């Protein structure tokens, strides 16, 4: 019935293959248009599938599997190459192909003039294909395949400017971190196969509640190992260090992969496996804890960073923390709702930051910006919309999705005061750092008068306008989203908690963050220096990102390299290899002593050898 949904996969795959083989023959900017066209077409198919699902009864909307061919049969393991079309996968597809399309169009302008323009778009198409495979996979195996391929696309695009050493290293770091996550997921798949005899989602999710009780060891193992993958992909503690470095890639990449889509895969995974997570409250509690902790952890770091993209990157980590918090307290569709609004406003922020960088010829340090509102009025406007939405200004989409999460952090059955207070505190920080970059970049006077800023071309501004529109209004779609997704989550629609007091506190926290940063902005230089000096130790810790990178180097990277060298030089050359040679030397010595038998005739040697074999044989057979 849903066989046509394979087109969502094949279109970008075709784009990738076509552009990487024949792309160089396309003149000018054609490859950008071709790449955008296939993603746009994939969006239309996704939209058709969306309509198709709506036309069905809610209980028929789930478990629709479209098999392409039987993929493997080995031992008791068999698997089809199949996709699962249900509200959750279609919801994700609409975001991936929709936002993806806008970012493709934007990139036509942004990447204009790059010598490897075509290669960029072929990688972008590869990413869309991989991400679509990830969300469409009907089993753990192809989920892992998609999971790893998005990692590959991310690796290729972070390291897109291959001559830049920092980009090459950042790409490798991201890849290795993600392989750690992949291994965790592979092990989760093994546990699932051992327990269920299949990797198929539909079968596992139907069987799981019948076979296992709450917090059963097997379910806990599966869910926790899956989290290794989820946390690595979504940059949650302690597997987050690759995301800020990933900003070495071109800005559209940061918007598409490292904000709107790929990094949310972890949230999608938890939502996809909600049946298993419902059986594992311990794992849920763990998710919520990690989510809340990451939210505040990244939020504090974002306060002091000066690179405009890094601030937004830490903000992404922080917002992903919110999504995990929501999923962890059982409000899966709230997590998905925030995923959607975040995709719009974070893509908007990244792309308008890209517009700023583009307009300033590559400048990324906010201390060298300022006064851009006159030179780049449209960018300034959309950036302000993004900032307001991120900060959760009332009636923007970010307000609806974040408020709902903050409320359920306290009121949901799994919620508690600690989760809630961390979430509220993060809301305050969010307002602070998001307005900090806005003030720095767009208001006041230019701090670097040599650079003549210019507004970006229409092909970049048009996607920004669309994203800004959705960022503003999509909050109203909340109830519709919940209803659409409900069949996947067992028909549940999260309760909307009414609590005037908590709601006001959350709003006040945001206001406080805004007022604080406004105050600092209006303070004169002299006082600012004083404050800076007083807060220096804190500033240093935050600026150095709590020294996590240094810690990993010290505890993991350096010992691993040293051990490799040690094993090469000592264990191998002075140990195993040496002792084998020693055995040889001893044998040689002995044979020299009995060299009376060595008369140089091959016949004698052969005879000796045969005699030796015969003696052993006699001993063995007739002992």
């Amino acid at each position, binding site marked *: 019935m849903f066989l046509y949904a394979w087109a969502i996969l094949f279109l970008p795959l075709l784009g990738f293959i076509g552009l990487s083989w024949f792309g160089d023959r396309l003149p000018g900017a054609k490859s950008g248009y071709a790449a955008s066209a296939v993603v746009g077409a994939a969006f239309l198919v996704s939209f058709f599938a969306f309509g198709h699902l709506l036309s069905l009864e809610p209980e028929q909307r789930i478990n629709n599997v479209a098999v392409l061919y039987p*993929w493997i049969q080995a*031992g008791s393991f068999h698997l089809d190459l199949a996709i699962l079309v249900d509200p959750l996968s279609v919801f994700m597809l609409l975001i991936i192909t929709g936002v993806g399309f806008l970012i493709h169009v934007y990139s036509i302008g942004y990447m204009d003039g790059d010598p490897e323009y075509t290669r960029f778009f072929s990688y972008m198409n590869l990413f869309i294909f991989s991400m679509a495979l990830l969300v469409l996979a009907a089993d753990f195996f192809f989920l892992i395949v998609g999971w790893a391929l998005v990692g*590959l696309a991310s690796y290729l695009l972070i390291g897109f400017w291959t001559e830049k050493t920092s980009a090459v290293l950042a790409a490798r770091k991201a890849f290795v971190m993600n392989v750690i996550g992949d291994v965790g997921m592979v092990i989760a798949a093994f546990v699932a196969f051992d327990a269920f005899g299949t990797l198929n989602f539909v079968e596992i999710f139907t069987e799981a509640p019948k076979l296992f009780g709450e917090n059963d060891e097997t379910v806990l193992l599966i869910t926790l190992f899956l989290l290794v993958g989820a946390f690595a992909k979504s940059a949650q503690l302690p597997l987050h260090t690759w995301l800020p470095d990933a900003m070495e890639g071109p800005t559209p990449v940061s918007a598409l992969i490292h904000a709107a889509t790929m990094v949310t895969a972890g949230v999608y995974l938890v939502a996809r496996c909600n049946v298993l997570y419902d059986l594992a409250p311990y794992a849920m509690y763990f998710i919520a804890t990690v989510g809340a902790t990451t939210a505040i952890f990244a939020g504090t770091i974002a306060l002091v960073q000066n690179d405009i993209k890094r601030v937004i990157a830490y903000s992404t980590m922080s917002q992903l923390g919110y999504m995990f918090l929501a999923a962890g307290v059982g409000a899966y569709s709230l997590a998905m709702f925030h995923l959607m609004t975040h995709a719009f406003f974070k893509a908007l922020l990244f792309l308008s930051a890209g517009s700023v960088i583009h307009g300033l010829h590559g400048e990324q340090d906010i201390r060298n910006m300022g006064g851009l509102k006159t030179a780049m009025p449209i960018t300034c406007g959309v950036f302000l919309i993004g900032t307001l939405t991120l900060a959760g200004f009332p009636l923007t989409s970010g307000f609806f999705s974040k408020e709902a999460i903050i409320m359920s952090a306290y009121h949901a059955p799994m919620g508690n005061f600690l989760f809630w207070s961390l979430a509220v505190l993060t809301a305050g920080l969010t307002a602070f750092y998001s307005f900090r970059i806005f003030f720095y970049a767009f208001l006041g006077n230019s701090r670097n008068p040599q650079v003549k800023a210019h507004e970006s071309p229409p092909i970049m501004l048009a996607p920004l306008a669309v994203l800004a529109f959705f960022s503003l209004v999509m909050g109203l779609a909340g109830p519709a989203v919940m209803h659409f997704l409900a069949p996947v989550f067992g028909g549940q629609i999260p309760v909307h908690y009414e609590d005037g007091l908590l709601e006001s506190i959350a709003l006040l926290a945001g206001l406080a963050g805004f007022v604080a940063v406004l105050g600092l902005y209006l303070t004169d230089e002299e006082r600012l220096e004083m404050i800076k000096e007083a807060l220096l130790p804190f500033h240093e810790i935050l600026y150095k990102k709590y020294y996590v990178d240094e810690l990993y180097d010290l505890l993991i990277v350096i010992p691993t390299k040293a051990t490799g060298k040690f094993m090469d030089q000592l264990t191998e050359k002075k140990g*195993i290899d040496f002792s*084998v040679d020693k055995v040889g030397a001893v044998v040689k010595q002995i044979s020299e002593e009995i060299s009376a038998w060595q008369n140089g005739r091959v016949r004698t040697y052969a005879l000796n050898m045969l005699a030796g074999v015969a003696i052993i*044989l006699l001993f063995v057979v007739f002992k």
Partner: protein
Amino acid sequence: MLSIIIFTPIVAAAFLIFTRDSEGVSSGNVALAGSALPLALAVGLATSFDSGSGEMQFVETYSWVSALNINFQVGVDGVSLWMLVLTAFLSFIAIIVSLDMKDRRSDFLALMLLLEAGTLGVFLALDTILFYVFWELMLVPTYFLIGLWGEGRRVYATIKFVLYTLVGSLLMLVAIISLTAIHFKATHELSFDIRTLTHTHIPTDAQGWMFMFFFLAFAIKIPIFPFHSWLPHAYMASPIPVLILLTGAMSKTGAYGLIRFCLPLFPEAFSDMALIFGGLAALGIVYGAWIAIAQKDLKALVAWSSVSHLGFIALGIFAMNGEGIDGSVLQMVNHGIIASALFIIVGILEKKTGTRNLAQLRGLKGSMPVLYGVFMLIALAALGLPGLNGFVGEFLILMGVWTSSSLVELSAAYVLMGGLAIVFAAIYMLYMFQGAMQEKPDKLSDNVADIGAKDFGVLLPACILVVFIGLFPKIFVDRVAPTVDRLLSIEKTVNLPTHQDSGRH
């Protein structure tokens, strides 16, 4: 047909040894023909192979030493089928690569063909003595190929390799003869036919040491940790074409031997020792990967990564279940394709730039865009990227280990060790690929020409196969699975007369 496949390279080799280039015949064309025909026949065989059957097919029997009932008997089943195709394929590639050879080319090619014939014979022989003969036959050309055309400490390396493997194989000969002796005791019939012998029930104590003798020969050949120390020397000394056969085909004879002999002949001893030897294999996986991280020489890096990947293959066999062994056989094919392609790439880089040291190589992407793409794909397959062929094999192997009953006490530990090695593989493969191809180019890399049509043609089949096997592993695994299922459940119908029985007479 199978005997034609084995003898074509031998005939071509003999022709080359006697005629040489001077007679107006190009030694290259003879060698190409001598390796192309077996490849064509092998592919034809694979298409007409009955995938539903786990029995030996295309069996041919010719009497050899009739007094002892030793026969020239060959056949293929699901396991040997792919080894046959792989060996024929890699030999053809290796011959193409060695066409550039300037130094005594016709002799080199003749020895390569002999090596191919020996390896093919090992995979096809159904008679234990014939197997042994081919097993030793592989050593002779290898000895000269490394000893005469090698680099560095080539004589030391080749003597070490030959002596080491010889120790193992002589013990195996003892076990081979004892096997027939035990069968003779039970039936009073001489037989060296592996299909007959597998039905003989071997007493438990004899199983122990006979298994060990076979195992040692195979463990050295694969190699399994800690019997690997000949490998870095031999690989470093080998010319690239020899290396293609050494790593791609010959290392598989050891793993093949485990599946063909140790598993069906001594199932009890096999499952008793699986935990320990599986542990050695798992140690080797991590050990090889860890040392690979520390390498700067590309050839050494790939050699050590081979130690790691071959450990995966051995580990899967010790899982003793369908998933694990199917995965191992698939991984043998995968490793054969990937490792040989990597060595070819290393050879190209060395030829073009004059070095294979990562400290000197950098930024080749700009001047070698085609090789960049090929290298990336192969490196990704080698690090086990899901979607490509390497991952299918590793996934099946580790899944087999996880659900294995022979490794159950430590299966989780072995899987974690495998996982660690996969992470390490990502590190050293990217280090190798990015180190050589990316970052700012310098003088050395600016003056390099991209690979030509010939080099691309040699690497293209590998590129196609890593994608194809990743998309359609079923075509390959379907032919393997029935054989593996049969080997795992062989009935022991021939029993030794016990002492109590003979006492009653």
